[in-house]
């Protein structure tokens, strides 16, 4: 059963092409990471899923129903947190949380109190006096207090302090345990790495990579730090080794994951004194795609 199904989706703003035929499938119970640089089209995608922007071409379906035509029905089952939260200056945080919960129709008083406490929010303050982080917390509490099946989160933890970011991540993990679906657009790659089962990378309106984190890691290089007994030379000429740098005692370099075997074989001839390898991080995957596909960037 799919929670989100996007097929060949395109959206233009005037002459600017924001989305260029993207495909995406999120299954029920998955925590799905959606990453990409600023202006890549993340927010546009989410807004189309919310039925507040209309697609020019292609389909966007949530729970198998068209996102534009069935917006109201769909919204009864989803919760959304925007990256930049603006609130009415003369209402209090508590009033806004209640309003949002009421508009949705189901009330969970105890859940609301629990979340206010966990996020350490003062609901009696007027929104004009909230900082960015506190406004973000209001949106998070309002969204998480709802009993939803799908959580659409658009850079939800921007502006949160590390403590609150942790609370946020705990909440997402709880959703995951309960079998809820979470679609998380984020810049914080460590967060995506920790929370998500699957990831899509979008760039200039196109999905350039999709899959589980493990799949993506295979696409990239492992960083190694090496010290040998004998002076090692001619590393650059070995297939699959890149970016060789001398350090005070040894060398560091990157290895293509599929050439790992041959490289180990090669370096073992020099008498390995120390070998550290760190698995590719999402950041490396991300950066790789920046460099490779962009060319100019």
């Amino acid at each position, binding site marked *: 059963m799919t929670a989100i199904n996007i097929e060949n989706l395109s959206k233009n703003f*005037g002459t600017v092409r924001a989305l260029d035929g993207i495909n995406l499938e999120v299954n029920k119970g998955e925590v799905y990471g959606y990453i990409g640089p600023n202006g890549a089209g993340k927010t546009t995608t989410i807004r189309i899923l*919310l039925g507040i922007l209309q697609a020019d071409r292609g389909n966007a379906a949530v729970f198998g129903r068209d996102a534009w035509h069935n917006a*109201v029905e769909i919204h*009864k089952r989803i919760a959304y947190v*925007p990256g930049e939260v603006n609130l*009415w200056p003369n209402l209090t945080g508590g009033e806004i949380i209640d309003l949002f919960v009421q508009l*949705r129709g189901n009330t969970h008083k105890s859940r609301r109190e629990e979340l206010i406490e966990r996020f350490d929010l003062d609901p009696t303050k007027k929104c004009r006096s909230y900082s960015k982080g506190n406004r973000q917390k209001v949106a998070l509490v309002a969204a998480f207090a709802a009993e939803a099946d799908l959580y659409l989160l658009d850079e939800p933890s921007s502006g949160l302090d590390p403590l609150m970011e942790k609370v946020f991540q705990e909440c997402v993990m709880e959703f995951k345990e309960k079998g809820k679906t979470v679609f998380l657009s984020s810049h914080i790659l460590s967060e995506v790495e920790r929370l998500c089962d699957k990831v899509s990378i979008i760039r200039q309106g196109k999905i350039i990579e999709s899959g589980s984190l493990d799949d993506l890691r295979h696409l990239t290089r492992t960083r190694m730090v090496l010290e040998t007994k004998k002076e090692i030379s001619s590393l650059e000429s070995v297939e699959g080794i890149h970016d060789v740098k001398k350090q005070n005692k040894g060398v560091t370099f990157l290895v293509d994951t599929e050439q790992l075997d041959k490289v180990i074989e090669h370096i073992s001839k020099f008498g390995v004194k120390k070998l550290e390898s760190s698995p590719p991080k999402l950041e490396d995957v991300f950066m790789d795609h920046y460099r490779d596909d962009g060319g100019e960037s």
Partner: protein
Amino acid sequence: MTGRLFHNSGRLARLILRRDRIRIAIWLIIITALTMIVAAAYTNLFTTRQEIMTYAETMRNPAMTAMVGPGYGLDNYTYGAMMAHSMLILTAIAVAVMSIFLVARHTRRDEESGRIEMIRSLPVGRLSNITATTLVSFSVNILLALLTGAGLFLLGIESIDLPGSLLYGATLGAAGIFFTAVTALFVQLTANTRSAIGYSIMFLGLSYLIRALGDVSSEALSLLSPLGWITQTQVYVNNYWWPLLLTVGAALIITAAAFKLNSLRDLEAGMLPAKPGRKTASSWLQNPLGLALKLQRTSLISWAAGLFILGASYGSVFGDVDAFLESVEMYREIFIIAEDIPFVDQFVATLMSVIAIISTVPALIMILKVRGEEKAGRIEHLLARAVSRKQVMGSYLFISLTASLMMLFLSAAGMWTAAAAVMDDPVSLDAVLKSSLVYLPAVWALIGLTVLIIGFKPRAAFISWIYLGYSFFVIYLGEMLQVPDWMAGLTPFGYVPKVPIEEINFGMLIILTAISLILMIAGFLGYKRRDILL
């Protein structure tokens, strides 16, 4: 499907009422109270038949017709007709402005700031917000209609009867409903609040001008303007209801169009395309003054054009003034103060006093922008760099002062140009310019007061508007109601000599200028010292 478009509209309407309960109450109270006070004032001011008939003659003249609409029932002038004639258009404009702000605030402003996005992520229909907003605005206007209607009737003045009072209220309400619809439409066209409000106010201004020209020259032209329709009700004399059917009918059609456009467009987009901007800052956008100017350029140009046109439309009635004079012997006897002062000069003086106050509006907008930027948290970007507070305030003050000169000059130029075109023996440019520019020190005094408030009590900056409103009340109604001298003495505009009928009193002008200067310097000192507040 259709029901889904409006899902939860009722809850959103309640949210709007919750947010604006005080704002709406203040508007309703001020408009109702002002209407009642003025109506009651007439009975004290004009006690004899002779006085009333003299006033009727005043209202017959074309300059008055241009300002407040055509007179009716003048042969048997009653308090009701007097009040309705002099107050209806002005009050309708106030109601229109209320409706424009109300609608823009809850549609485009909320959308622009991203709040509607959060609302729309909930089970809320695509048209729910505009439905809630128009519903609230319509209801507020209906309530206003009932309040003013009942209030007027309860005064118990002889000619101010129940059917007339209800129609008077309903006319105001209809104007509000019409401009609710117009704003709901403009809000669909442009993607930002400022333009949406700007277009709506411009539409209101054009309606007034077309009506002014039409009322003086041809009735058909007046019928092109919604403000022209509402003067056709002839409240307290003939009590015609059909103009209201026309107004409300048109409003409903416009509202339907706005709903249609709303359902077609994307959230946060406007129907009119936004142009891509410049890649680099132009050479004059390199300092605080350049920035302040750039931010207010459109507003400045629009106001300048608007005041030129306002001046010109008043000036265009001067041709009729001559003809009018020849026909009314009695008027000549009563109103010509001295034989050597041409009658038309008095019109210049009267119209200029009102134009001067309207010219103060852009000057205040320009200086209050410095507070607006502070409130939006953007002034910090400047102050965190190598820019002093003196420079920031100085930039906005410079623009405000320039605006005051520009507006007074252009309105005078507009008036003279039009007058020269229609008069056989034109009034001199020199006289018109003097009549206008003599108000500069008074405008500066208001700017000075605003600088002072911004310097010390920034959150009270709205007081400048109330003070200007008071000045308008005293000067505008002072012409018609002869308000007590001490009331005129409370506003700087009361001290300005009415050139060309009065001599220029340089002593008074120097004192006013000196006071303005002191206020400004004090304001600068306060601004240097105080906290920057959101």
